[in-house]
């Protein structure tokens, strides 16, 4: 079972990792701006395409913005999201409070801003976790094949058979306490089999390449062949699916919080706020509107990014 605190790292680092596409591209000697792009490595080639893709630019700008909001919510609002005044319950927009107030009389704008942190953190942590766990298991199964593959693949199947939401509910119920780590662990535990299957398929197809045989004939060890020769050629589909799944994991966190078993109510989160808003849906729809829109935009941004990355990495789809 994954130990959440080990796979965890500050959101900034993970963001840097998810944008490595661009970084490695330019480090690999990408063409200077203005120069007619001479195609280089797969990654710099992909970066070259991405920079010209409006979908990528829009989603990347949104995601960078979201990350800034999640990291420094104080920059965007000076109102305390937990300061509530029942006098203002369900009131509309007012000066200094553009989105109005929720049922408890808390400022919706500041709750939407502070709620970003939970969503973005859960999304990024879970995605990193499932890529690492699923990636390692899938790669080992594919690389060694035979008995190793059979055992690992059946293990994957067992987890794959558990419905994600249902499994997460059961898992979370089993914990005496709830915080962001238990939510991350629950989603991670059930989300990795998909990554594992994709990684396995990808590694199997790369494993048969001549350059792998050549590397072996020239004296490379198993570990070196797997990490240096197979993985860089097999990782692309995993990155694509991971980016798209990130949005789904955020939705899942919101769903769990909505159901009241996700993040504790002391943590500001969009899912929790949507849950709170449903009781006054008819009298005060704006209470539901803002956290829902924020959630939708976030998920949309990651899905668009995933699409753009897929287009850049797989020229056959164009």
């Amino acid at each position, binding site marked *: 079972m994954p130990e959440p605190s080990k796979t965890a790292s500050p959101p900034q680092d993970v963001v840097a990792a998810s944008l490595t596409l661009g970084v490695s591209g330019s480090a690999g000697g990408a063409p200077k701006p203005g120069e007619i792009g001479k195609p280089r490595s797969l990654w710099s080639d992909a970066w070259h395409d991405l920079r010209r893709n409006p979908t990528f630019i829009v989603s990347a700008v949104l995601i960078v913005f979201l990350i800034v909001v999640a990291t420094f919510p104080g920059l965007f609002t000076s109102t305390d999201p937990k300061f509530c005044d029942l006098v203002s319950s369900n009131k509309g927009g007012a000066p200094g409070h553009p989105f109005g107030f929720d049922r408890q009389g808390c400022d919706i704008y500041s709750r939407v801003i502070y709620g970003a942190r939970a969503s973005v953190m859960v999304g990024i942590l879970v995605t990193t976790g499932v890529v690492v766990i699923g990636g390692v298991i899938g790669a080992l199964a594919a690389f060694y094949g035979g008995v190793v593959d059979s055992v690992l693949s059946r293990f994957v199947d067992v987890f794959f058979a558990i419905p994600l939401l249902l499994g997460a509910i059961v898992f979370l119920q089993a914990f005496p306490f709830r915080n962001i780590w238990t939510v991350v662990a629950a989603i991670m535990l059930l989300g990795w089999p998909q990554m594992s299957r994709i990684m396995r398929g990808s590694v199997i197809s790369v494993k048969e390449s001549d350059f792998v*045989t*050549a590397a072996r004939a020239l*004296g490379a060890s198993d570990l*070196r062949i797997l990490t240096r020769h197979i993985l860089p*050629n097999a990782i692309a589909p995993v990155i694509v699916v991971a980016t798209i799944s990130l949005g789904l994991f955020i939705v899942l966190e919101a769903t769990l919080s909505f159901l009241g078993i996700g993040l504790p109510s002391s943590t500001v989160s969009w899912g929790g706020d949507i849950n709170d808003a449903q009781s006054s849906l008819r009298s005060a729809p704006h209470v539901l509107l803002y956290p829902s829109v924020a959630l939708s935009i976030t998920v949309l941004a990651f899905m668009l990014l995933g699409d753009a990355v897929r287009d850049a990495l797989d020229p056959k789809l164009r």
Partner: protein
Amino acid sequence: MNQTNPADDARHKQDANAPVLEVEDLHVEFRTRDGVAKAVNGVSFDLRPGETLAILGESGSGKSVTAQAIMGILDTPPGYVTQGSVRFRGTDLLTLPEKERRRYRGEKISMIFQDALSSLNPVYSVGFQIGEMFRVHRGASRADAKKKAIELMDRVRIPAAHERVNDYPHQFSGGMRQRIMIAISLALDPDIIIADEPTTALDVTVQAQVMQLLADLQAESKMGLILITHDLGVVADVADKISVMYAGSLIEQAPIIPLYGSPAHPYTERLLAAIPRVDLKGQELYTIKGIPPNLTNIPTGCAFHPRCPYAQPICSEQVPPLQDVSEGRRSACHFWKETLDGSIQSR
């Protein structure tokens, strides 16, 4: 099987011309669902420093599998070496544990593959891949490895090596890519290079250049070269001796000139007759009738007898042994004498 025979060791030290590689009675089989395919059946040959041995045969005759077995890169399962030995300067490679055996690959024996584009990793620059040999085997730093990579690219005559060292495999032409493969396999000054159809994917003029390069490099470093091919034209210019394979067995071994002049096995004779010739322009090309045998069901006796125009009853009953014809020359045909002097009659 003995790993290192002290007497052998002494002999190898004294005699600079002793064989670097001795393959003896090598058997390889593939255990598939359709049965056991006997891909290599008792192949023996040796290779001396500076010598070029060509292994000639059609697709499926077992020549590439022989090379893979020597390198230890057979896909296991389904491929297994069931018998025989591969001795490198007296050390039997087949009995070494994998970890020790790996030290021989790239360092002592290295390999060039048919399709250089798919044999190079598309995500790394060529300089990185050549340099990898020095980093992995010699622990060189990145900067040193790159310097060596440029030297090697110069050595295999890639123009503007300095500027091209950071380019990726797909930015090179076919011939240049094969030169990069050669540079990689040459990196650690191996004693033996096995080239598995190195020029098949190239066009004819580039083929000639690459073969010339291999011959020049070999002359510089006294390494042994095993050239696996089905192209008799490629072989003629560079090989010292030829081993002809058919259905996993060696059927004729000979120095190059006698073999081309007067083959001692009907299969070799037919192969030579099938070479297109300028003076026969306009005529239909000669073909050997029939198809190569299925390796899961090799014909009894001489494997070639169903296609052999001279076949006699004995050919389907007894396997012809590899017999000495003359110095350095052997043939596995019951009627090698008659084939050699041309007195044999077609059925």
